[in-house]
């Protein structure tokens, strides 16, 4: 029963959504809107699970005096402090909550994001080392595309932006579409497996 009921729910709702894709009737649209409303309600309750897990992990760390347990205090304080700021003063512009977001969260996020440029350079170096025929081709294509994206490329020769566009529009797009095609089929197959109850891992465990 523990698995049958969730399986039935998934199968029935899954089939209903498949039908919804093909049926534009008002009944189908109303059902979908009704489901969306319920989804919003259910999703908001799931926040409790996330916050609960975060608190449990970090209180355990503090209890066990795990390495760097002091940071767990910092995490809990940040969680409680930010939530309290939001609950007490609201989340509109100019409130302490927004101050924390603008002056702590946003700059920290931007810092992490800016690291991406350096990591990208490092990854590019690894990818473009001309150790084989394929890597050499990749290197040449990359140089052309990079030059074609900046004005110096056009200054060298007006062919470079054209070749760049061709690389992006033809071989690159063809490969992308091929991957997308496979992904689409993979998604359909996975969805079908879930709807038909063949794939049940999401219920917990691998019992088929």
């Amino acid at each position: 029963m523990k698995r049958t009921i969730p399986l039935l729910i998934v199968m029935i709702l899954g089939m209903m959504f498949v039908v919804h894709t093909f049926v534009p009737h008002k009944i189908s649209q109303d059902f979908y809107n009704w489901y969306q409303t319920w989804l919003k309600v259910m999703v908001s309750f799931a926040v409790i699970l996330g916050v609960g897990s975060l608190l449990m992990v970090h209180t355990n760390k503090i209890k066990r005096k795990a390495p760097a347990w002091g940071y767990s205090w910092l995490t809990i304080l940040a969680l409680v402090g930010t939530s309290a700021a939001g609950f007490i003063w609201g989340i509109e512009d100019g409130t302490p909550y927004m101050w924390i977001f603008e002056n702590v969260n946003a700059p920290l996020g931007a810092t992490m994001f800016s690291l991406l440029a350096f990591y990208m350079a490092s990854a590019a170096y690894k990818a473009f080392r001309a150790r084989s025929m394929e890597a050499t081709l990749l290197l040449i294509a990359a140089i052309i595309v990079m030059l074609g994206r900046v004005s110096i490329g056009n200054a060298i020769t007006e062919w470079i932006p054209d070749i760049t566009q061709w690389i992006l529009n033809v071989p690159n797009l063809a490969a992308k579409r091929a991957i997308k095609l496979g992904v689409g089929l993979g998604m359909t197959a996975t969805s079908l497996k879930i709807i038909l109850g063949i794939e049940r891992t999401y219920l917990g465990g691998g019992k088929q």
Partner: protein
Amino acid sequence: MNKLYKILFFLVIVSLCFNLSLSAAPKIVPNDEPIRDLKISDFPHDDGGGLVITWEPLPKEKRILEYRVFRGFTPDSLFRIGKIPVNPKTGVVADTMKYTNAGYTFFVDATSPAKLKHEPGQRKGSNAEKILYREYPRDIKVYAPMLEHYRILTVIPADKYLYNSRMKVKTQIDTLEDGTVDTTSSTYAGLKLRQFKYILTKLKPGKEYYYAVQAVNKYRDRSPLSKIVSATPVDNPPEKLKEFYSVAYTDTKEMKFEWSLPFFKTDQKQFNIYLYDANGEKHKIFSRATAYPYTSQSNATVSFEEIKNKFEPFNSQNMQWYRFNISLKDRQDMETLAKDEPIPAEITTTEVLPEPPEHFTVRDNPDDKGDKNLIYFGKPYVTIPKISYNDDFTELLVNYDIKDNELFKVKHAIFEVDGVSEKEYVLDRKVEFDVDPDNLPNEIKTRFICYDHGLELPEDYEVIHRFSYNERLQVVDIEPPKGANYSVQVLRMNKTGGGPQANVWRFPKELTYVEREYPDKVDYEEVVYRGISDYSIEDNILYTSTYYLVGTSEEERAYYTTALYLKQLEKNRKELKKQIQSLKDKKSQAEDEEQKTALDQQIMELTSKLEDVPPVVKEANAKKSNKARMKLLQKKHNNDVRSFRYFLRKTDGKGHFIDTPIYTNADGQEYFKPKPNWFKNKETITLIAMLIFGVLVFFMIRAARKGKNLYIRPIAGIQEIDNAIGRATEMGRPILFVPGTSGISDVATLAGLAILGKVAKKAAEFETRILVPVRNYIVLPIAQEIVKEAHYEAGRPDTFDKNSVFYITNAQFAFVSGVNGIMVREQTATNFYMGMFWAESLLMTETGNMTGAIQIAGTDAITQLPFFITTCDYTLIGEELYAASAYLSKQPMILGTLKAQDYMKFLIVVSVVLGTILSTLKLTFFMKWFPAK
């Protein structure tokens, strides 16, 4: 010591950042002055339901974030009714700010705050102390007494009002001056606030309202409250219509009038057209009710005969003597003329008019939920938005857009420039021509080849566009084609004749000269609008009136008003019968013949009211339950209000217009009601593909079950999973598994979780710790359950640690820093990234690379694949992610689907190759089976 240095260093950095941010912050100018020059003026041309509040904005140095507007019907209780947000960096450039409190605005609904709360930050001793409140709360004790101070309109979902409202009879007993007791009872529909969609309010004309404004700066400091100013809204005459044209057509003996519609639409009753005779005397020759809340017609045709009926001395021979004017009248019968001086008519014949739109057709719009009628007309057309040359003027690039409809569905287009034709097999919206730079072309002709299922297009039909190269601007100027000044108005009327003000055509859309098709929206009536008649604080119920308007489609009676409840109906009938009996008794005692005749008349009227009921209402009244009765009435009502007849009017907006007849189809059907469709025809190919795939899956699973050996291409990334887990076991370090950063609705996350199950089981067998950080809190319990079950299956429930699957945060880069921290601190030996990823992918895998972990990634995110391939040891590309769980489980059912997937892919590749070959051979039929969108 080392630890102490680290802490000190951290503190120094934090304080430095804080100081820097403080010093970089602009100076704060205290928000200690109220806004000035608060004025209230009456909203023009309205029904007395609007006021305009203006004030002088505060300087930008004050960093104002928003101006809050408060309103009340007494100066000692003001409620926040709205705000104007401002960019605190730039401030307001204008000299004055304006807030318009007009029309019906939101008052309260079930999501309003539960309790009445004061606005925070009101300084003690200031003029704002204890008088400012936040929004109106949903507390009936607070908002209900306020209802009488405003005009109220409630919006109620139809099903709540018709089927779930409670009938309430209220009896009022009054003792009259002569001592007799007068009893009046009224029936109401009772509803709780949560049953309303929302309640709206509008100002009452002649009532005084108080307003104040408060500015809130970036730091949420509130300025002192402005001076409290009061004003009384006044009902104004309607606005002047900006344009008015009158044209007399001598051959058809009629006049056509055209005018512009008013900007303020809420308070309008009718348009009146006046003729001024030679003596300047005014005679009303035409009158039409407006279609509010729908758009009214902006033109009218009046025959000479009709004019003569209204103004007998009218003589069309003396047309040059007459002058014309139009007025707009509001519901209080205030009238405004459009022109200060009446205008003469343009005297002409219908020869100046264009041909009306041809092939006008109406039918149900396919593939919808039953809320659109499809209207189409005319032969196909091509618009040319841009023509350009290359640098040396040897090539001409023409961008085009085909406008067609169901009757003439364009298959191919043939473009001709300087005698050179280009046939467009694929209508890709651009066509190129080689041209002579010394003799640039100036004309492009377009012909069309249509599909056979529609009408036959005349062979000589072509569209011509003329153009020339503008040397000064270096662009190609395209001349507007003939007839571009004419637009097509779609006019419609439902079975009730356009509403209670019957016989009014609504004007839903004006189409430009290029359009050939229009899906006309016919909404379902899902809400009803009612006022509030009474309320009960004890029962927490609001009472609205109980009438129900049902469309009857009868010529003389478009709508019939009936009671909402059966009990109410019965009560009304009894009362009517009682009144009739009482009149009959009076009549039998009456001696005067005149009195008897008057009583007879009254009896007849009441009897007619009792018995003259439309058949559908009679049928509904025979039902046993309220619900069954209302369902039947609603069905009839919806049919009448959603069935429309149509005609088209081609007009230049200046009185030169021509109409098509009202459309009637081959079966004589005049009214068209959209039908809800059960299948999206556009999705046929998707359904076929899905069925083929389903069949393939079925046969492959059956083959796999029978023990047929299904060959599956080996994928290195999957084969290495066991080795990667073994490595972690040997090194005695944990495994990190990130199941993507998307939600559970993403199929990639589900595929990632399926792999997690297999990896966790293997890890449990090897007694290796597995860490699963999660970004989405819905994924968390599922991942926890999967890992737990995996440990149980491996026979090691004791090794399962619930805290090894944990939530970090929903913030993208905060999650990355959390995961990176785990990699560095825990020195994970093996990292798995399986699911959907965005920009965070490279940040995580590069860190993993630096810590020396073996990394296996799998994603369907095309943009992230290059990063994974570069930085991970093995990558599952796209579909391989979905195949992984099948590979790992080796179960026939799952392997069967995988094999079916391969066959389906083969079919798609065959289709792509076939489509390419056929399209290259200019055979586009196969390509068109697969819609692009």
